């Protein structure tokens, strides 16, 4: 394998992993606060179509990313209102969010199918970006890639090094105790859910603005669900989730570079790999119930209604 192919391969891994890092890390925070939001796929698609529409109408990449985050947050807000305000089932509401997001994004994007976008600008640093091998690998990505590298760092620091992170974890592990101490359980869960929505929206924006810069119906193709599986795979730890996302990026390259490696299998079978891999890692992690019990937020998915 030549150096050129190696560089191309690593670049593919990075672009495939980036949306997963955003969506999974966002969901990690949501789940750490005790809320299980199965609507990641729907929030991602809404973000993707909003981001693309923004670029299409006002041609500003920064605004597009912000708009995608806002769209993700807005859909997350519907979810949060139903499960936190009205005590609806988190599983059912998450599914509703996914179904709604798929429909809404298809409706919003119907006039934008097939329009191409140049893609987010790469951050070009004179001289450094031109370095052989290191240049393209490290210094020639768009801003979202660098943001996705900083995100687990920030989230890990927040969760384990700040007081606010401690409170968030407390709310996820024992909402009754947190409430008794006087922390606003519902408000904290709202914020955690909104953060998850913003990150899912950003993941969507990365898909429609950078990964394959255009809008296609249902373009997330299950990545929202893979992100959910990654949170379990990473046993609710930011760096393991990040690692998992890159592992999945690695599987995607098999799919894209199979031909280059001389593997003659129908493309459909290669496309199955990420989904089958998701099932395999889920089984490997879940088979040890103690590991899940030790790491999972204890109150995940449980409704909280203060008695007083």
């Amino acid at each position, binding site marked *: 394998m030549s150096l050129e192919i190696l560089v191309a391969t690593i670049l593919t891994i990075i672009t495939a992993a980036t949306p997963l890092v955003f969506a999974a890390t966002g969901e990690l925070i949501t789940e750490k606060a005790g809320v299980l939001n199965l609507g990641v796929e729907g929030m991602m698609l809404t973000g993707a179509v909003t981001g693309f529409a923004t670029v299409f109408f006002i041609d500003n990449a920064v605004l597009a990313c912000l708009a995608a985050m806002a769209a993700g947050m807005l859909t997350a807000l519907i979810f949060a209102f139903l499960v936190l305000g009205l*005590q609806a089932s988190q599983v059912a509401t998450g599914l509703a969010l996914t179904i*709604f997001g798929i429909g809404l994004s298809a409706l919003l994007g119907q006039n934008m199918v097939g329009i191409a976008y140049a893609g987010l600008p790469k951050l070009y640093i004179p001289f450094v970006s031109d370095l052989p091998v290191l240049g393209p690998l490290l210094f020639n990505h768009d801003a979202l890639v660098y943001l996705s590298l900083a995100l687990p760092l920030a989230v890990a620091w927040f969760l384990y090094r700040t007081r606010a992170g401690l409170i968030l974890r407390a709310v996820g592990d024992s909402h009754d105790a947190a409430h008794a101490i006087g922390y606003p359980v519902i408000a904290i869960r709202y914020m955690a859910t909104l953060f998850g929505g913003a990150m899912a929206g950003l993941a969507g924006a990365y898909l429609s603005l950078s990964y394959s810069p255009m809008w296609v119906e249902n373009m997330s193709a299950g990545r929202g669900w893979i992100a959910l599986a990654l949170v379990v795979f990473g046993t609710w730890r930011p760096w393991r989730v990040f690692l998992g996302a890159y592992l999945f990026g690695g599987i995607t390259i098999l799919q894209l570079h199979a031909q280059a490696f001389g593997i003659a299998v129908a493309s*459909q*079978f290669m496309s*199955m790999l990420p989904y089958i891999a998701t099932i395999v890692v889920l089984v490997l992690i*879940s*088979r040890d119930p103690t590991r899940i019990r030790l790491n999972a937020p204890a109150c995940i998915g449980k409704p909280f*209604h203060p008695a007083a």
Partner: protein
Amino acid sequence: MLRLERRPQNSRTMMYLSPVFALALTLAAGVVLFSIMRVDPAEALYAFFIEPLTTTYGITELGVKATPLILIGVALAIGFRASVWNIGAEGQLTLGAIAGGGVGLALYEVEGFWVLPLMLAAAIAGGMAWAAIPAFLRTRFNANEILVSLMLTYVATLLLSYLVHGPWRDPGGFNFPESRVFHDAATLPIIVDGSRLHLGFALALFVVVATWVMISRTLIGFQVRVIGSAPRAGQYAGFSQNAIIWLTLLFGGACAGLAGVVEVAGPIGQLLPSISPGYGFTAIIVAFVGRLHPLGVLLAGLLMALSYLGGENAQISLNLPLAVTGVFQGLLLFMLLACDVLIRYRIRLRTRSAT
């Protein structure tokens, strides 16, 4: 400020009224949606929900669209009662279509009354086999059945795509990704002349009744209800949670598989890369709107079928995008989940003295 007050007992009245409220709210949201889209709301709602039912053909089409929704919805409802979240019915439907359709293609031009029953049996087996994977992984390895069954949906779609692009492609089909058209013996008989309403609808009605009997009159139905509402009590009573997981998932797979073959051997008539506009997912809404009860599912299935039919009609008559259907369906489930708060809570005005 509004405040939620726990009812001493869940309200049965609200349980049945909630879908009605939800439907009314969804229609109200539809008025807003259509206004934003600069379409006359009255005209749009008429095209969506009334015009499709003004012809006999329209009513039979309602049955055609409702058939897979009812079949899958009934089975999912049983699973949801036991808190077994089979989200991959779409994949089990696809496998049913592959297995049943595969038998039909293998027996191409073979005459005999047994061809069709064999296809149905193969489809049921195919759907069950696909659902057995999440059942096994959940009971043996504790893997989440939501994620596993959903991932398998993507795998099933890709498998179908491979088959119709490759080995099962119609040799005389100008390289289109389509299988041969099933011969008569492998096609479901039409039950209303001049329509597409096929025997599958009668099958769906039979499944509704059979499930109703099973859930209300047998020990299995009782176990499902107990495991779902009070898992611990169920365990003390000696009911096996694993057995319920297996049972509900296999039943879901069987019904979804049946729905798959009913689609390809019915209105579609051959295998195509895409054989369902998301029936397996819409059936989740059907199950909830139908209050997880077989009879309710029947009504909810017809309602959701109307949303598909209305979407197609509004596309033709008003040039509205087909995606409106999906938005309506999602909205309805949101509204339903919101209205369901009234089952367990009263809404009270927060007075100053109460705080």
